[in-house]
């Protein structure tokens, strides 16, 4: 996995609560057997009109937000399905960091496993960011995972708190499976113990 230390980029707004995984990547695009190539379908039903043209009504489509790598959005982002195609699509489109007041559990976890940093800020802080972005479309933020800080060139600073296990994983681009396989002796002990239980449940 690609490590995440510091990223600086354009912030794109998605001013909706409860954005679900069906919106992030509609199901008709889940049929690939690879992890890549999903970015073109991100927010598909919102981004494009019926005849396949970019929909002007969708804020993120505006010119200043092209090439954005940070997404700000509202509460409960990523609710719904466990599909990892959602973070794959966000990543493939170019997002490395998503800022929201809250995230759905499975989605939050899935982000870390794919090199995306999900950041929880308070409603008020997110409001501030929406205001900044709208005042100056193309507005940039720097997200520093090492320092656990987010800041802008015009002096805004936010302290962020990322669970330490996930933070270490992301900073080093660690592969969870390798981390677990290093505990082989513990897994084997557990399996032996489980086999000895008088009523094996398995």
């Amino acid at each position, binding site marked *: 996995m690609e490590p995440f230390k510091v990223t600086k980029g354009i912030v794109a707004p998605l001013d909706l609560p409860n954005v*679900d995984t069906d919106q992030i990547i509609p199901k008709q695009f889940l049929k690939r057997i690879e992890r890549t190539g999903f970015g073109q379908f991100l927010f598909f*039903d919102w981004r494009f009109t019926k005849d396949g043209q970019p929909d002007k009504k969708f804020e993120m489509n505006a010119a200043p937000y092209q090439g954005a790598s940070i997404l700000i959005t509202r509460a409960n982002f990523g609710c*719904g399905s*466990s599909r990892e195609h959602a973070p794959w699509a966000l990543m493939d489109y170019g997002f490395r960091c998503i800022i929201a007041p809250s995230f759905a559990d499975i989605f939050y976890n899935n982000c870390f496993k794919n090199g995306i940093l999900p950041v929880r800020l308070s409603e008020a802080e997110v409001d501030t960011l929406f205001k900044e972005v709208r005042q100056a479309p193309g507005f940039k933020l720097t997200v520093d995972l090492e320092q656990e800080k987010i800041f802008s060139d015009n002096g805004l600073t936010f302290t962020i708190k990322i669970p330490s296990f996930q933070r270490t994983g992301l900073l080093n681009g660690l592969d969870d499976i390798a981390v677990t*396989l290093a505990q082989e002796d513990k897994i084997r002990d557990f399996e032996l113990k489980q086999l000895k239980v*008088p*009523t094996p449940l398995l």
Partner: protein
Amino acid sequence: MNTPKTLFQKIWDAHVVHEAPGKPSLIYIDRHLIHEVTSPQAFEGLRLAGRTVRRPELTFATMDHNVPTTDRALPIKDQTSLRQMEALSENCRTFGVTLFDLDSPHQGIIHVISPELGLTLPGLTVVCGDSHTSTHGAFGALAFGIGTSEVEHVLATQCLIQEKPKNFLIDIEGKRPQGVEAKDLILSIIGRIGTSGGAGSVLEFAGEAIRDLSMEERMTVCNMSIEAGARAGMIAPDEKTIEYIKNRMYAPVDFENAAEAWRKLPSDPGAVFDQSVQISAATLAPQVTWGTNPGQVISVDATVPSPTDFSDENDRKSAERALEYMGLKSGTPIESIEVDHVFIGSCTNSRIEDLRRVAHFVNGKKVSAKVHAMVVPGSQAVKKVAEEEGIDRILKEAGFDWRESGCSMCLAMNPDVLQPGDRCASTSNRNFEGRQGAGARTHLVSPVMAAAAALEGHFVDIRQSGQVL
């Protein structure tokens, strides 16, 4: 004396492989269920890293999401779907995983077949790359959905790295009134606590109304725990649970001993939950969702709410958008909303008891001429029993379209898709924008409510029909 523990705590503690302060725990997984959509990339990952499946005998696979529900003898037209199904077959062969494929008499929606086969048992940890894995909690198992990276992790290690969730008690006291189905219980709960009310928690459903439910009804309740944002939902095992499992294909050989162990699983008296809520079953009515998330739900005898009914800014915005998408005006009586499609199916409501109730309700009547109504049994096994009992005949005579098993119009990934503007009464679990087809409008209801809507062409309060079981 040991400290009293909840059902969840007992299962969690029995599965911790390793824990260290300040870090997520490593927990052991007893059952891993996989399907064609969320597993190909996991197997690809294993191959690239030169890894194997640690305990292939604990992983079980089927194809459900993408499969056509028309005649199985016909060739599959959608080449990309076919590619996913072929990839699953190939991966199961290579890695030694048991697969119930399209031709198997055990094929069906993964969350329907695992309990049918006796793979879902009390006290187990069960995971699947699908959020509705929470269904299996109905047996007193700790069951939750995972992403594809985690699927790969379980394949390689039979373990998962997990933050210990909180534990939330939902106590539903009293008896359900007539016409109020398991689906209405869970929709009411979600309406009450909200779509993120269960975030970070494992829900335990308890109380008389829950104990009274059959195993299939308990699955309906646990199935939708995820729609309340919960990690999982569970119900304490009891004699009904044990009876259900007895003689199933994969039931434990030493059944009596296993059953003894299961009887020790329910939460101890005095066990502490992080949060709890009480709901009185007697106050509940049949539910219909009016919006685009399962929390936007109301009783059938009410009217479509107005955004101004909500004090929270986000809820208000959400409601405004939902009403626009759904093409509804506030103040409209729910019963006057007309539907043109009815879908009875999905891992929430496609089991034999659901179909029996529907057949009982529609027997001798006709589906409205304006409505296309479809019934998709959850599994080949459900379909077989239904056909033996003549349920298919009753439904077909009433004008329902009777299909082969699969996820079908629950997520409309196969050819069963609605058109923009179509309005559907659906027994599935998600009414998100576009879930059943771009621009299509979904109302979640119980199976009998869906059947009634099919007959009348609009929602009806089934309590008035004098005909509910």
